[in-house]
């Protein structure tokens, strides 16, 4: 019986086909291209829902499908195969669902851009690559999807490539992702070298045979890859710059889906991490450090999208922290990923709506009082805001609170460290998000004309933009409760990450943790409201506070990158250039000169005279006959 689960490849093929059509059809597709883009993603979403229902009806809850052999060299055999299991199913729904909303939103947002068709082509390409990433059944196919989303992200950040900032942001994202990708590639090489396979089933079955050093190395390399894609410390600097792309891109790729690929990878590779406590500890450290970095810098930024970008970074830090804790926390990482997908995408779309009204300005110091003129945006944005700070009973509460709880439960000093960091992060999140909310939507109108422009006259965005925002707001409100009620998500994911177990002993009483978190959040909200209720200066105040200065400069991440990667790279390159020009080029040029000289001389044999040609042939014949005669007399 053929069912939806036999044609999973359609999920990927539809948006991919649409991307190809949109790219090849040229201007002819300008009028209907965006509808095709939306329709294919909608079709994928419907297929995703059907597949989800079909999977629910099955008992084994895992479907593998081999499409064709991709590589068959020696013992390396890689099939293009798909794996549809509870984890993939959740991601498929997230990617196609949020993707569909953002596609619809983009119709309105990009309406005045002459390259809208190209935009939808890239968005479709992204959706296809991301689906391939989460549907793969081996690490090589994951890598293909991994590079595919990287490419789409690069193309979309640089969508307005004529803006120098966008072009250099795209380059930065590309290069920093490369560093991470090398980690993923090395991890795959190590798996193949030690286990002889790259398929999930083969690798996970063989993890027990790996030495602990190998398992740790593979885990840390995977973590490096995840850090690059997810904008985690120390590869975080590209993510805020990526906000130079169109806002729907920020919402879809750099908030809801692509940047969470790192979390997916770690949860998917949970058997490897389970085998190496050291690697798990590394994941926790990366998560905790990043979540603090994101919060601190987020407090000092005045660009609405950058604040949200640092917020994304810090929320993904929470997910990494959860993934690193392992066991029941894997499901929490995915839970937070899903709720974050809703509220962060909603916040970004709200930011886009604000920018739409404010003539593409992004400085929150020049907003204020927008709730009056953009009520729908303010309400949806506000719901997202309440969700992200973790106010019960909105989504963020159900996903963030248990993560902090589990962080405290970690035995030893690390529990206190990670739990404390997560708690502090929750308070800081409340602070900077309240600041963003208050400065944007409430208080005095501090509107100012952009350089050389007119004073903006903000008004509510069209329904094609507000409707997706509304849908995401509903998700921000309800998703957390629905997914965590009676451990719905944990049970669903149990076949992949292991069944949820009730923690035997909590280090701290759950209620204590919850109340401390709520206390920290309230503190953050109150301080921010008190500080910014009267508005703020229109320009950055002068300060000597070293923390603020550091935060304004992104905690010197760019300086460190410059010193470590760029200078070192430039120095290594100069050495290589020297070796190349003196050593390699010398040899090659010499050989080339020999070839060229020979060619020029031999060319004179090609006289054009039949008589000399036949002489050449005759010489050849004589040579052949002589050679054969040698064979006879030998």
């Amino acid at each position, binding site marked *: 019986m053929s069912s939806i689960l036999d044609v999973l490849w359609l999920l990927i093929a539809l948006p991919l086909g649409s991307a190809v059509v949109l790219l090849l059809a040229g201007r002819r597709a300008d009028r209907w291209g965006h509808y095709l883009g939306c329709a294919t993603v909608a079709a994928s979403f419907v297929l995703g829902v059907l597949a989800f229902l079909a999977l629910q009806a099955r008992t084994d809850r895992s479907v593998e499908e081999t499409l064709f052999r991709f590589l068959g060299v020696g013992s390396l055999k890689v099939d293009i195969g798909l794996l549809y299991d509870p984890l993939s199913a959740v991601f498929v729904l997230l990617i196609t669902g949020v993707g569909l909303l953002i596609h619809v939103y983009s119709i309105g947002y990009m309406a005045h851009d002459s390259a809208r068709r190209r935009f939808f082509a890239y968005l479709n390409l992204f959706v296809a690559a991301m689906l391939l990433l989460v549907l793969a059944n081996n690490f090589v196919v994951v890598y293909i999807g991994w590079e595919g989303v990287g490419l789409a992200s690069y193309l979309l950040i640089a969508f307005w490539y004529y803006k120098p900032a966008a072009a250099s942001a795209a380059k930065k994202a590309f290069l920093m992702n490369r560093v991470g990708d090398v980690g993923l590639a090395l991890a795959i090489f190590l798996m193949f070298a030690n286990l002889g396979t790259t398929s999930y089933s083969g690798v996970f079955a063989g993890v027990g045979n790996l030495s602990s050093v190998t398992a740790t190395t593979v885990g840390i390399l995977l973590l490096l890859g995840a850090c690059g894609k997810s904008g985690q410390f120390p590869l975080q600097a590209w993510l805020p710059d990526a906000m130079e792309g169109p806002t729907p891109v920020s919402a879809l790729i750099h908030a809801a889906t692509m940047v969470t690929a790192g979390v997916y990878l770690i949860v998917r590779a949970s058997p490897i991490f389970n085998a190496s406590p050291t690697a798990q500890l590394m994941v926790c450290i990366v998560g905790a450090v990043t979540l603090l970095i994101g919060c601190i810098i987020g407090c000092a930024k005045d660009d609405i999208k950058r604040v949200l970008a640092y917020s994304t970074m810090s929320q993904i830090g929470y997910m990494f922290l959860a993934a690193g804790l392992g066991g029941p926390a894997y499901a929490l990482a995915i839970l937070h990923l899903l709720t974050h997908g809703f509220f962060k995408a909603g916040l970004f779309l709200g930011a886009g709506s604000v920018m739409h009204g404010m003539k593409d300005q992004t400085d929150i110091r020049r907003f204020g009082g927008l709730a009056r003129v953009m009520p729908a945006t303010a309400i949806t944005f506000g719901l997202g805001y309440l969700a992200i700070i973790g106010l019960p009973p909105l989504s963020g509460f159900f996903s963030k609170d248990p993560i902090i709880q589990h962080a405290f439960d970690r035995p030893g000093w690390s529990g206190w460290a990670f739990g404390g960091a997560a708690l502090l992060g929750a308070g800081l999140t409340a602070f900077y998000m309240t600041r963003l909310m208050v400065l944007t939507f409430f208080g005095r109108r501090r509107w100012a004309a952009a350089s050389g422009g007119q004073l903006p006259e903000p008004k509510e965005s069209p329904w094609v933009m507000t409707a997706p925002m509304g849908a995401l707001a509903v998700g921000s409100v309800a998703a957390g409760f629905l997914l965590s009620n009676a451990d719905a998500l944990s049970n669903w994911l149990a076949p992949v990450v292991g069944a949820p177990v009730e923690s035997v002993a909590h280090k701290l009483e759950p209620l204590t943790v919850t109340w401390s978190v709520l206390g920290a959040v309230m503190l953050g909200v109150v301080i921010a409201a008190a500080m910014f209720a009267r508005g703020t200066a229109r320009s950055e105040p002068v300060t000597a506070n070293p923390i603020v200065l550091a935060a304004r400069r992104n905690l010197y991440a760019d300086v460190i990158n410059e010193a470590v990667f760029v200078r070192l790279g430039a120095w290594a390159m100069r050495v290589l250039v020297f070796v190349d020009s003196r050593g390699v080029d010398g040899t090659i040029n010499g050989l080339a000169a020999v070839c060229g000289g020979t*060619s020029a001389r*031999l*060319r004179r044999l090609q*006289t054009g005279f039949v008589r000399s*040609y036949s002489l050449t042939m005759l010489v050849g*014949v004589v040579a052949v006959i002589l050679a054969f*005669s040698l*064979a006879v007399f030998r």
Partner: protein
Amino acid sequence: MIESLGAHVAALYSAKPGSVHAPSIDYAALSPILIVLGAACLGIVVEAFSPRRARRAIQFVLAVAALLTAGAAVVWQAGANLTTASGAVAIDSAGLFFQGSIIVLGLLAVLLIAEQKLERGGAFAVQPAGPDRSVSSGTGGVGGTQGAGVAGGAGGMASSESVRVPTNTEVFPLTMFALAGMLLFVTANDLLVMFVALEVLSLPLYLLCGLARRRRLLSQEAAMKYFLLGAFASAFFLYGVALLYGYAGTVSLGGIAGAIAHGPSPTLGGHASQTLLLLGLSLLIVGLLFKAGAAPFHSWTPDVYQGAPTPITALMAACTKVAAFGAIARVLYICFDKAAQDWRPILITVAIVTMVTGAVLAITQTDIKRLLAYSSIANAGFILTGTVTLSAAGLSATMFYLVAYGFMTLGALGVVMTVRDAGGEANHISRWAGLARRSPAVAGVMTFFLLAFAGIPLTSGFTSKFAVFSAAFGAGRLELVIVGVIASMVLVFPYLRLVVLMYAAEPAADSATVQLPGGPTRLAIAVGALATLALGVAPGPLLQLASNAAHFVA
């Protein structure tokens, strides 16, 4: 014709002189050859009796239909493994694979030949020896110097008149005769039939080479050279056949193989002289290597490829190559496999010399068609690398390579047809400078073909080279692999130089422009490009087919 040939062969073989009886002929097995041959004969009738206006359309449809039918017949015969016409023709899986390749590539070549939009009246001269005012290049077709500036001629005059330009339609039956000869050539199981097929395929090609509408002298010179040198090579071939008959007392491939294995059969006569065998073999091989364009029997290739009308160059580069290597493979695998230790070192040397010659001489070429000619010589060397291994892997790699190379070179020459100036095609590569600025699509397609020639992964150039080199490596012929890889690397230079020229150089004021070709040419280029891509990305099915088909009937 086949029937009479069969009768002739039967008469040769019949034990009792005088009692001639017709041999049994499996017409179904011969149907691909018969269909194409029939279409060629029908084409002559059309030429004589159809109205002038409709002639071209009829000829074109006839040729395409015949090739499609013949292709269907090949598919229908798939799996056949028999000899017919008294063992003179062998229809086996390898032979059918070669036949299928020739038909598919021939079909694309016919599409190029049918091009009318680039040049009024097509690329072919109507009067075989019309008035010619083109600059005489003397006897010297000295490498690459005569390409530019030779224009005018009958075509130039004709196109300046606004009246209807007469079209040469004889090219279609001539092409069909050549293709029929090739189809027979790759299935000939008997040296005499092979010789007849060789002549059937060669004579129309000699004519076709001389039919260019532009640069008449160059074209006629090419035809003359090809004819003289071809006759020279045919003489070697025939002499080789005679010596081998003297050795084995028979000209059938199986009979000679038997004689090598067990000594000449007493009923047939023949002298068990090793000298006769090796002398005959060497002369036979020379004749075949000439057609394949292997060094040192390659000298005709650049001049003829350059002078011939470009669609005919494409036909020769793609189809003749398949035919020549089909015959070489059959002769080596069926007939002389037991004498391999004698000929293999020699053919390995030939392969090495061919690769090196083609690659090194390609560096200094300034004419795009001559560049492709030297590239085809080098490729002949690469193909020979697979063939001389005498293994099933080598044979299937050879078959795959021939198809992949055929698509590539057809497509590239199709692109060459579209880059033109007032004097016809602009073949000097300096005229291609900055082409990408004016015609990014054409430059892109050409770049793709050049990358495929260079053997970049994801093109069929990579998979096919990988196939032959791995076959050679598997057979322990490391020297071939090393020289082959070096030659491929050297060849990357001339290919990429053209790419750089197209993209990086400023277009000169008199740079050539791209004219939009007609539908058939566009189709041929598109098919060539798609096949090159498909065989590079997913070579599996064709490799599988080739390896299933890598079998000759003994």
